[in-house]
């Protein structure tokens, strides 16, 4: 199965608000998608890949250590909605993860709404998260193990990793 990774704020996706009609999805989910020029970043996970690796690769670019959430879903959700998907190089701190990067392109209000709606319906089995301490350990271990690029990290993360690398 081809799986896609999309970063989402885990807490917001945890429950349906009481006012939500059956089969609906909360509108605030759209806020957090952060479309750029009607495109959305996702990652195509190889068969043996863990979503945690993407979460850590993305966290290296951020300015503060924080829990990280995601939803993993079947590529068929995208193709079924006729959403264009294109391979583009990612900009994470993990060169391997960069190769997994894809853009969902030419998104419309309708296609985004339908896409989010489908994800919301499967979220209970598809959500995942890393706590801040797990992110920290992943970044330090990744640099120590050589698969994360320290020089590509945000300055704050570089400082944190350097302070925690084994001497």
């Amino acid at each position: 199965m081809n799986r896609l990774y999309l970063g989402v704020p885990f807490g917001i996706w945890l429950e349906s608000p009481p006012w939500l009609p059956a089969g609906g999805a909360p509108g605030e989910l759209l806020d957090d998608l952060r479309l750029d020029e009607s495109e959305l970043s996702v990652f195509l996970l190889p068969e043996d890949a863990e979503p945690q690796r993407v979460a850590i690769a993305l966290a290296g670019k951020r300015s503060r250590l924080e829990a990280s959430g995601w939803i993993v879903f079947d590529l068929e959700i995208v193709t079924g909605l006729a959403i264009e998907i294109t391979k583009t190089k990612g900009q994470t701190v993990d060169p391997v993860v960069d190769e997994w990067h894809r853009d969902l392109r030419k998104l419309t209000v309708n296609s985004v709404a339908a896409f989010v709606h489908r994800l919301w319906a499967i979220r209970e089995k598809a959500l995942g998260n890393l706590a801040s301490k797990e992110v920290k350990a992943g970044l330090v271990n990744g640099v120590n193990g050589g698969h994360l690029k320290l020089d590509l990290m945000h300055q704050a993360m570089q400082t944190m990793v350097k302070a925690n690398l084994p001497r």
Partner: protein
Amino acid sequence: MTITAARVQSSPTRIAVLKPSTDSTAPARPLRPVRPDQTSTHDPAVWDIVWTVNAAKLQMLESADEGSTAVHVSEDAAAKTLDAELDHILAGAQYEEFEEGMSSEFEGRLKTLVGYYGEQSITALHARLQSGIKSHILIEALGALGRMRVRATLAGRVAVLARWLGNDAASVRYAAGCALLDLDVPIARGFLERAAGVEQNQLLRESLRKLARLVR
């Protein structure tokens, strides 16, 4: 927060003792702004020193009038200043977009405020967060409380975050749980375990259990 019962003595080492009202979750502390690096929450001897220093500052800043009225006016003024600064920070937050993993101006301002006012700012913030604030601002504020390293306010921050673990919204409970982990203190584990024990949302229950395991 309602400030009550200012007690004034003639000695400059004990100018005012202030007690927050009973609905406060944070321990009582002098209202005077206190630099966090001057304090230790658990050491009364240190508080004596802090109060002495503050009393000296107070005498310099206030009028020669030794009467309690002057002290009351000063305490009220400090509380109003804190409230006004908090209002300003929260108003600004309404126009800021928060992004997971990215520092925010709101967090920076909160840290500065807490660093300056100490425990009183935690109590004031907690009260303000309960007054119908937007959930994304609330979540950002809880995260900030977990990440800040103002030792003197630790007890208050633990109390506030533990309280928000019982909120109706799962997103808020999750944010409070993450923030408790970020405090990096063993006492957080008990709060997280108890919250996990009563959590109805399965995903959140598992997350809270994981957070509890990760506490050192």
